[in-house]
């Protein structure tokens, strides 16, 4: 299949507001691993007041922000774009949502004082804010990424930084099992959520750069949806990414005891 005629349209939602902890790196990863395959990547920022039309995009990225900034977008996201975003999710649009973006897709976010903030209610999850923040490097195991039974291929590396505890309802599957870190709520041993083609995680920033198989998984889903089920994503080396993963693992094994 000739990829030079293929195109990937990325919707970056609220890039001027939800851009915490290196979320930008996820978008750069989608662009890079598409373009190295000769697929043209088109990036469209969609912020407050801009229209969101499902037909204009193949994949949507929604990151996390500081509380002040999440409050700025809540009305626009839930009330204005909300119905169209929900429809896109039901139609199988591919989404990657991180931290604040993840929480906002759910039913509500309950603050420390008990106040419930209504969220989009697009997927069956809810979040409760607590005092203790989970801040650490993480490792997860995602079954859907396992290639030829090789365990390493299914490992996801991340960094979590959240005080919200998220709980999943019956229609939502966790994205991965926690190997290191707290995950969704520090209790059930799971991390993130999958609903239709929506992938959610608490893993910030350099999530996709560190996890090229996850990047490819999302690209494959988005391009198959656009070009049909028989579309095959071309092979692409993960040498640089694997080098970075190996370095990270070595660092973790060494034990980080320095001040």
């Amino acid at each position, binding site marked *: 299949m000739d990829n030079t005629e293929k195109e990937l349209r990325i919707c970056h939602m609220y*890039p001027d507001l939800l851009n915490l902890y290196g979320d930008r790196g996820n978008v750069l990863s989608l662009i890079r691993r598409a373009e190295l395959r000769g697929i043209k990547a088109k990036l469209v920022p969609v912020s407050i007041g801009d229209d969101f039309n499902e037909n204009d995009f193949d994949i949507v990225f929604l990151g996390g922000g500081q509380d002040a900034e999440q409050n700025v977008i809540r009305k626009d996201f839930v009330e204005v774009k909300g119905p169209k975003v929900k429809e896109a999710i039901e139609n199988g649009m591919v989404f990657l949502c991180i931290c604040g973006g993840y929480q906002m897709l759910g039913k509500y976010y309950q603050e420390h004082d008990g106040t419930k903030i209504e969220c989009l209610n697009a997927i069956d999850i809810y979040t409760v804010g607590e005092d203790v923040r989970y801040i650490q490097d993480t490792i997860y195991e995602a079954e859907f990424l396992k290639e030829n039974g090789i365990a390493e291929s299914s490992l996801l590396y991340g960094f979590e930084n959240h005080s919200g505890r998220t709980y999943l309802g019956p229609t939502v599957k966790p994205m991965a099992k926690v190997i290191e870190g707290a995950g969704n709520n520090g209790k059930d041993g799971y991390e993130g959520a999958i609903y239709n083609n929506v992938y959610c995680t608490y893993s910030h*920033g350099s999530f996709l750069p560190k996890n090229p198989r996850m990047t490819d998984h999302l690209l494959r889903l988005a391009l198959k949806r656009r070009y049909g089920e028989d579309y095959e994503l071309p092979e692409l080396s993960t040498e640089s990414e694997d080098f970075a993963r190996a*370095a990270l693992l070595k660092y973790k094994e060494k034990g980080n005891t320095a001040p």
Partner: protein
Amino acid sequence: MASIRFHIAVFSAKCTHLALRLMGRGATTLPGKVAVKVDPKILKKLCSGRDCVTITGTNGKTTTTHMITDIFRNCGYTVVTNVSGANLLSGVTTSMIFGMKEMKKAEKEGKKIICVLETDEAAYGKIACQIMPKVSVVTNLFRDQLDRFGELAHTRELIAKGLDSCEADILLNSDDSLVSELYKGREGRTVFYGLSEESMHYNNVTYPDKSGVLPASSDAEYCTGCKTKYTYTARSFGHLGSFSCSKCGKKRQSPRFFVKYDLSKNPSDEGYELSLCDGGANGDKASAEGVSGLIEKRVKLPIPGMHNFYNSIAAVSACVCMGEKIGDTEGLSFDKCAAALEHVEAAFGRMEKISIGDKKICVLLVKNPVGLDRALSFVAGASDAEGIYMLLNSNIADGKDVSWIWDVDFESKEFPEKVYVSGDRYGDMMLRIVYSGVDRSRIIAKPMEECAELLDQAISDSTPGKCLYILPNYTSMLALRSILVKRYHLKDFWK
């Protein structure tokens, strides 16, 4: 009693200092910590009756502190200041204790004394009431080690608390929407400094930044008051520029002290010239309208890089305001302070060029996204840049999370030919550079344990007359510093 307690505290600090030095260690904070344990109010006593300037904010603290110190010294003052990084209660106290002797001596000789104290943003709220500064400079607010501070709005609240606990004249960066807001409720004692709007606008249009694939993550695009997106008529870098809010009317205030500059010449080059101005009550409007009362002084930028426009004008403003506050408008006139700025020299890790045999290195400490953005932009513009060596650690002092490197627009920056990478997180940094489009084969990446050998290699690879730019973050800089002392016999930087 209090007096005895004070003397015991000072004595304990001196013993601690001696012990640390005997062990061959730097003693920039522990003596103060010990002293505070003995006498919790020791800093207040040390600063009582002194003329203090404090400098706080995310970036430029150390350089601005250093510039202010040098200006005062060049104007004949005796200055007590703190060592870079020792900017918490313990570090400030240590510096004041060990400055006592010098101050006493200066007093005997009838010399004028100033204390120039860099203070951490979070610590400022707590220690301003002890220091009771006469002048307080706030440089800027950018994302920095978010896993430590939480959010920028919170950091600003801490600074506001400090400002309200003292009676200092406040010097604010007019171009930073997050900082300039601090003038509200403190109008009578606030003075603004910044870049001239006219220069910003002209240079923006004439020399627009190279645009990358994706704009860098910005820290303050929306009005903190009414959540409306700011309109910018001009920008300098990051979220700094001439902003205004169409809804609530919040906007950049015209600065009294400002810089006129022209980017047709490269501020990465040594000897770059700019104009420092005091527009008086007319602010930078004085420049546009040619109103009388404008004082303009042409100077050579003492430390290269566009971000040093801000540090320079902040430093000169602080000295002039101190002169007005203590009644030395003659000795600390705008002309004299601006002239004194030219003689400032870079501090270690702040663009100081160091010769190693016939080779040259330059160390640029980078701790947060905008700092890294500025450093990469500086290196991209430096005509002698042949190699770049980046070191990334993720210890507690650095911030455990290294994902901030992805917030920086590497894509629009040109990298020197030779790229070296080390630090505990060398894999992360290597990948970041590769993702910006630099070919993997151009990058040599080694773990932290091999950073000294990699430095040897990078230095030996470099050509005389060219420069190797080294960009470490905080703890990797400390490691680098001791390597330079041990392996290359450079002077001890702890002094």
